């Protein structure tokens, strides 16, 4: 992993077309701006992780099916 320091207002390039700029650093967060061509899809990495979690559903798990059934029952009864 490449590690380097940047100050707010500074940026770096990924390849020729993607620029990442540090906009603001606060308590416990960093605000980042990305300038990239439209065809470069940018998304928070946790979205891919959540999709992988969803795809890893263990349908044989009684815990999974029971909690799902409980929620759907609530949903259908109009209380969910």
């Amino acid at each position, binding site marked *: 992993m490449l590690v380097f320091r940047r100050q707010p207002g500074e940026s770096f390039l990924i390849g020729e077309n993607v620029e990442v700029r540090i906009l603001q650093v606060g308590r416990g967060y960093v605000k980042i701006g990305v300038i990239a061509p439209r065809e470069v899809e940018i998304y928070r990495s946790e979205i891919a992780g959540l999709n992988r979690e969803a795809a890893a559903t263990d349908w044989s798990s009684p815990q999974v099916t029971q909690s799902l*059934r*409980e929620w759907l029952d609530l949903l259908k009864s109009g209380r969910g």
Partner: protein
Amino acid sequence: MSLPSELSAGSVIYFPEGVPGFEASRRFVLLQHGEFEPLLLLQNVEDESLNLPVIPAQFVDPTYQLRVEAHDCELLGFPEPPQLGHNAVCLLVLILAGPGTAPKCNLFAPIVINPLSMRGKQLMQIGSSYPSVFPLAGG
């Protein structure tokens, strides 16, 4: 509810950019999950072991506000921003795995399908307050 009425069973939905986490997977079908209706499975055509459990957004939040940017309208073949429940199918990914196994869904990044073009994409709702992990009641 069964399959969204706009979609016919077994029709292949093309995701030009894949799905985050499965970028190489482009072709999916929507299947009913009989036991857990209205839950649906978005199943990859090439790899049937790849299934994403999803649920129409209206079931989780009847007032769900979908925003589709112009370039995504173009990608999905919407001549203008779509209306949820009219000309767009909006599905939320259900996360049923992991610690605790209480059901959660991703409100921040719904999977949007244009039933006319049969194209789909998971769209980030940038600028919204929708969380990517939303615990569902009863979990």
